[in-house]
């Protein structure tokens, strides 16, 4: 077995250690983390303002800030456009990006495989099979049920994969293989269902499968915020365990980590984070795969800083992708799942190239 890249890079000079004075709490960060996080946060803020100001009805950036703060602007419509239409969708994109990115970082950390993404836990295929299958077989399908079906399908798939991979303990390789097996079964079923539907329904289903934040509401934003508020802090707390798991099962066990417990909790977190994005916006691919890679190139492999950075990268990626999906073929728009890959892939290729030199 070759040594995972993250381990090879591990002993690196220059750490920033933060200790709480009273509590037994400390965080060790790569030296690059503070600067990178600050830069990302500033860029993200700029992207947010730019995104809210852009649209068929253009609003000056300063007016955007005023409207968000609830202040009067030159035009009474600003408040409605900003707070009613654009802000919920853009905030949702931001949070979806953050959730997918964190989910991807966890699953790549647990499986120690660079190709892993939340889809490996069957999130997308489980949700997709249930939703598209429901469209296919229900006499009069009710779109209001889609989010619930998606949630059930996503979590059920993750549960089944974990259960099947369990044999006197879990193993990351079994998890990967079974995840891939079930995901391709799901993919085949979905394409079969698509051939059975009427063209209109099939296309609706296809757009849903691609992922879209069109017509998002504040209630979705609140739902998402609630989930993130619970799951993200838990993930950060377990960052150190991810570092240990990343050393391999044998080493992790001998270091005294409660391997199975931590792995189960982390898989649950990863599945939960990805599942909630599927319920609010459909299956958005790529962000969960690429954000951790980008973050790793920026701040190295130690998970405390990596997770923080990944979440920002994922959020930024989806905010920019959302802006692009409204812009490229305006006044029409592309599903955000499409633009995410079109923007993220070239940047990642550039990073790959830069590091190779």
């Amino acid at each position, binding site marked *: 077995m070759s040594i995972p890249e993250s381990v090879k890079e591990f002993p690196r000079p220059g750490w920033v250690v933060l200790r709480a004075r009273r509590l037994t709490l400390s965080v060790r960060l790569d030296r690059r983390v503070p600067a990178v996080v600050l830069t990302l946060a500033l860029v993200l803020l700029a992207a947010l303002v730019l995104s809210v100001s852009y649209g068929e009805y253009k609003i000056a950036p300063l007016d955007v800030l005023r409207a968000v703060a609830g202040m009067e602007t030159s035009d009474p419509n600003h408040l409605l456009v900003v707070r009613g239409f654009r802000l919920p969708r853009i905030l949702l994109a931001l949070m979806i990006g953050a959730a997918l990115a964190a989910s991807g970082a966890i699953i790549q950390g647990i499986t120690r*495989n660079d190709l892993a993404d939340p889809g490996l836990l069957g999130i997308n295929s489980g949700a997709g099979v249930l939703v598209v299958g429901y469209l296919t077989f229900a006499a009069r399908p009710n779109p209001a049920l889609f989010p619930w079906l998606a949630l059930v399908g996503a979590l059920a798939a993750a549960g089944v994969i974990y259960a099947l991979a369990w044999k006197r303990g879990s193993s990351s390789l079994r998890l990967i293989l079974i995840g891939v097996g079930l995901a391709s079964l799901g993919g085949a079923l979905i*394409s079969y269902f*698509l*051939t059975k539907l009427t063209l209109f329904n099939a296309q609706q289903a296809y757009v849903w499968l691609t992922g879209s934040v069109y017509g998002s509401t504040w209630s979705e934003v609140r739902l998402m915020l609630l989930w993130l508020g619970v799951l993200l802090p838990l993930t950060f707390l377990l960052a150190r365990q991810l570092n240990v798991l990343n050393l391999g099962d044998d080493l992790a066990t001998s270091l005294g980590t409660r391997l199975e417990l931590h792995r189960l909790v982390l898989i649950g977190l990863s599945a939960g984070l990805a599942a909630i994005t599927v319920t609010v916006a459909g299956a958005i691919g790529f962000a969960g795969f690429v954000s951790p890679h980008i973050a790793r190139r920026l701040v190295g492999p130690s998970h405390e800083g990596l997770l923080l950075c990944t979440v920002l990268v994922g959020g930024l990626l989806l905010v920019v992708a959302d802006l692009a999906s409204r812009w490229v073929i305006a006044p029409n728009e592309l599903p955000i799942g499409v633009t995410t890959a*079109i923007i*993220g892939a070239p940047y990642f290729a550039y990073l790959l190239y830069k590091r190779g030199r």
Partner: protein
Amino acid sequence: MQAPAVSRNRTRLIGPSALLPVGLLVAAVLLVAGLAASMAVGAANIHISTVVEAIFRYDASLFDHLIIRTVRLPRVIAGAMIGAGLAVAGAIMQGLTANPLASPGVLGINAGAAFAVVLGVYLLGGLPLLGYGILAISGAGAAAVIVYALGSVGRGGATPVKLTLAGVIFAMFTSAFTTAILVLDSNTFDQIRFWTVGSLAGRGWDIVLWMGPIVAVGLLGAMLLSRQITTISLGQDIAKGLGQNTALVRALAAVMVILLAGGSVAIAGPVGFVGLVIPHVVRVVCGMDYRWILPYAAVAGAMLVTLADTLGRVVQRPQEIPVGVMLAFVGAPFFIYLARWRVR
């Protein structure tokens, strides 16, 4: 990146290597029997003796003979070809990239083929089956060249990790454009959704004769490279240390993957699972020597596709379940069983 643990498993089902040729022979005989049985089954069942007669003593005046010769024979040959092609392509990919998740999809080949086909349908409207084939294989070729170029920039050349990442990125990038076309143009979407499933229905002699040589060259080339692939699968450093020109072998093997996977996609659309599952199954049987893995994979892949296609024609008569879907139904449980019981 991890090496496939299945291949590291020293226990294999067929112990002494003297038994390996015998096993291969038995498997090949089984495959031929399976092909004959597959031809006997369909919308109307035809007795197996009639099948044999239709092949060896063809009588054009008999209706059953006509069906066998013009419809069922090309179809089972097409099935065997894509099975063998995809399985061998998958085995090569897993050997070269040392990643158990690798399959032709990972080099971006399926995505490239699909993009070319979708773009073609979008620009040209409807296409004959052969048109799909030509587009698919050129898309696959272009994809592999781009991925290879992308994966070998910078120091160190085309390492497995860089190639794999480049492949995944390329696949996602092109799929995004494919999706964009499909979302925006309902006419293209309507045609493509039937192609995407992966089906052997209506595949006749024309496509078999066009793609047959391509797949055959790919299979032959793969067998000739099998020794070098075994060496590379032990690790880049070991292969270099043994004096192998790894870059050349890699490039040649990639060409074989394009021919095999591209030809298969051209015949039946993007059929998954064979390329992923079969190599894992085969490694359990015959260890980690690609001189045996590749021929076993070819035979086993052909058997799996034949079985899936036959079942697809039987279970819901007179309707057909596309082979791509049946493969997932047959392959997934088996693959999961394998992962559960054979992986530490």
